[in-house]
């Protein structure tokens, strides 16, 4: 491996992906080093790993030789406060960001990195107001599976020059190469924020949306029977709007988020699913009686399913309503007999994209939709 020796070590016990062990782990510290590692990895099966909070999500790789660990590829390259943008290296943990009175409005698990959140398109409660990674990402630098470094987008929010490759890499689960740097638009940190906690049913969501309070998040949790609304803004405005919602839901204003807020509803050895449905179908989905938690105001709920029967029931309900149901994580014995991704329209075009970017199918092989 010549010059790359210092970036690479033999894999240890924890260096596996969904139970498939790697032989080597490389930890590049810059885009140039990452490009050299990828170029030198020809013929090897590669999985990219950030903080490891979601690395076992999805089917295990068909084969695995090399894990590229992005955690040395960390740090804020630029924070242009006046322009409300920041440039971040992919391995930067989101909880470490110090952006003053501004914020990157992405919800992520503790320890999750910028690259991991983008690659999995993970979102959380505040997506109702701010959107998800695809909406906030305005520029990207990647290393293609052939080692070529490419950029798309830029450092200005408004930009329609060329294809939006950032969107293609967002949610691509590491199958199109390695993300090394991301540019995001930022939002001001709100001066005030409060939660209105209630036990109102999911059917109350349209009334909340109609109340003209511009909620940042509307989350439900079936385990506690709670429906909680996050409101952000000026202190006086938040006071007035929260009083309105408090009355509407017969709820209670709280400075603190409920304990379940933004957390996955499943335990480590359970089946975890992401369900998305049109907004009007949320009450019927909740009515199935499964353990659900998530963005009732956006139509995205996370489920802890007991068994395959429950997975199938939830999936049938979602698909029938024009939505989707993806199994994010499951114990090995369940995972191996499940179609984790479910039906995926447009698969033929997706395969052609994969063939163009990674003709040897060596980046995260078999982990994505349709066995990509």
């Amino acid at each position, binding site marked *: *491996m010549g*010059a*790359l020796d210092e970036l690479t070590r033999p894999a240890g016990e924890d260096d596996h992906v969904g139970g498939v062990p790697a032989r080597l782990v490389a930890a590049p510290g810059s885009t140039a080093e990452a490009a*050299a590692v990828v*170029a030198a990895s*020809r013929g*090897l099966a590669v999985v990219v790993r950030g903080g490891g909070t979601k690395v076992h999500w999805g089917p295990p790789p068909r084969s695995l*030789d*090399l894990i590229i660990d992005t955690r040395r590829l960390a740090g804020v390259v630029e924070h*242009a406060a*006046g*322009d409300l943008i920041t440039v971040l290296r992919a391995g930067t943990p989101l909880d470490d960001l110090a952006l003053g*009175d501004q914020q990157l409005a992405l919800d992520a698990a503790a320890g999750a990195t910028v690259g991991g959140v983008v690659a999995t398109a993970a*979102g959380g409660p505040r997506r109702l107001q701010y*959107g*998800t990674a*695809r*909406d906030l990402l305005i520029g990207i630098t990647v290393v*293609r*599976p*052939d080692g070529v*470094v*490419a950029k*798309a987008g*830029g*450092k200005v*929010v*408004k930009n*329609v*020059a*060329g*294809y*939006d*490759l950032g*969107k*293609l890499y*967002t949610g691509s689960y590491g199958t199109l190469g390695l993300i090394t740097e991301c540019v995001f638009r930022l939002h*001001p*940190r709100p001066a005030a924020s409060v939660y209105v906690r209630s036990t109102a049913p999911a059917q109350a969501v*349209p009334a909340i*949306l109609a109340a*003209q309070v*511009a909620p940042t998040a509307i989350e439900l949790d079936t385990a506690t029977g709670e429906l909680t609304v996050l409101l952000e*803004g000026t202190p006086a405005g938040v006071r*007035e709007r929260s009083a309105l919602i408090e009355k509407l839901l017969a709820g209670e204003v709280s400075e603190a988020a409920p304990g379940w807020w933004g957390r996955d509803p499943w335990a480590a050895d359970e089946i975890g699913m992401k369900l*998305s449905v*049109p*907004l*009007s179908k949320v009450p019927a989905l909740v009515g199935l009686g499964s353990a659900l938690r998530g963005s009732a105001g956006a139509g*995205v709920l996370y489920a802890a399913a007991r068994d395959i029967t429950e997975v199938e029931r939830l999936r049938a309900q979602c698909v029938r309503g024009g939505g*989707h149901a*993806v199994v994010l994580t499951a114990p090995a014995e369940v995972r191996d007999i499940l179609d984790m991704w479910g039906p995926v*329209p*447009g*698969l*033929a075009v997706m395969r052609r994209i994969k063939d*163009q*970017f990674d*003709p040897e199918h060596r980046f995260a092989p078999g982990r994505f*939709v349709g066995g990509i």
Partner: protein
Amino acid sequence: MADIDALARRLRSDLGPEQVVTDRQELRTYECDGLAHYKVIPALVVLPHTAGQVATVVRACAEAGVPFVARGSGTGLSGGALPHAEGVLIVTAQMRRIVEIAPADERAVVEPGVINLQVTRAATPHGYYYAPDPSSQQICSIGGNVAENSGGAHCLKYGFTTNHVTGLQIVTPDGDLVRLGGRAPDPPGYDLIGAFVGSEGTLGVATEVTVRLTRLPESVRTLLAAFPSIDAAGAATSAIIAAGVVPAAIEMMDALAIEAAEAAVACGYPPGAAAVLIVELDGPSAEVEAQFTEVTSLCRGEGAFEIRIAADDAERALFWRGRKSAFAAVGRISPDYIVQDGVIPRTALPEVLRRIGEVASAHGVRVANVFHAGDGNLHPLVLFDARVDGEAERADTVSGAIIDLCIEYGGSITGEHGVGMDKAKYMPRMYGDDDLDTMQLVRCAFDPAHLANPGKIFPTPRLCGERPGGDIAARFPGVEVF
């Protein structure tokens, strides 16, 4: 033209004779889009009524190896819908059915020929609207908005077309009808909607679009502030952003643009202003009032000598009329003009405007500035008189220099008008060869034969047979393989 004649016969029988245009005079009416100095007469125009008919046309093109270009209302400003002389122009204007307004899902499903503003009109009785609002919203089509990823004055707060499309039905360049996404968020797999929106017709034709509807804000407040200098108006913009306010829109016009707007629509802006800002805030009344007071005092603090606050919708419309009519209004003070579209980081605004002024006066050309100040999207209007020898060339030089400035300051060659035919030559100044090559991998996945709107966006097409990875050893000399 033998191929075209055969194709025309086939499409006449498949679609019906009245939907296929071959008459030279009629074809000429489609020779350009909103950027009228590029003109190409298409070989054939078809007017499909359904997605199935679009698929039939595209499949026929694919089989005959004939290029095709999709066109909505033809209002684009980058020549993106410029026809191909040996190709078929697919005009979606007949496909103007609003399939469904679904307020309970906060979605609308529309055909591509539906006019942008009609979506808002149909949604308004339900308390919703369609947020992306390009200045041409009374005539531009949703299909065209999808192709160009159109923005508008209010995208500072609400984002662009790409943030509002949740589902597409497309015809791929080989003629397949494919559904992507729908009313539910986050469809699994690659974000093909994200790749398609803004691809300027080079990845296929959108035949149905599902868009997000946004709740009408409870309160909208608009002010017009007059400043003694561009710098002061720029400083006020920065102060508003620094205060943590995200207005729905911050628009700026300079003295020459104001002069043109006054001549055209008598919008009655404060006399003597070197620059005016239009600032609009929307949202819950409880938030908007407090922030509006803050914005007003920030404008005063930066030297605004007159601030008018719209008392009602009529007055708000008057503020906006000056701004939205600015492009056309320039015709009142100059026989010809180029509308430029570039982006710079917002904080560079005063400096870049100064340099635009220097370039303009060095070439003896007048430039009127109209722009979305909140997001740094400049629309300089470069004025000239084509009858005067050399003026068109000088205007073109200044227009190009403005784009160079945008690149120099880390911005973009286009914020909302698209690359199209007009700016393909600038793409290599903004992106490297590898960047452009990577974008074209997507093109190769959708359209390996390069039949969908060829010649747009990319100055040099990539041969899709080339597999990446061939020259790695050359790129990393001395690197051994694992």
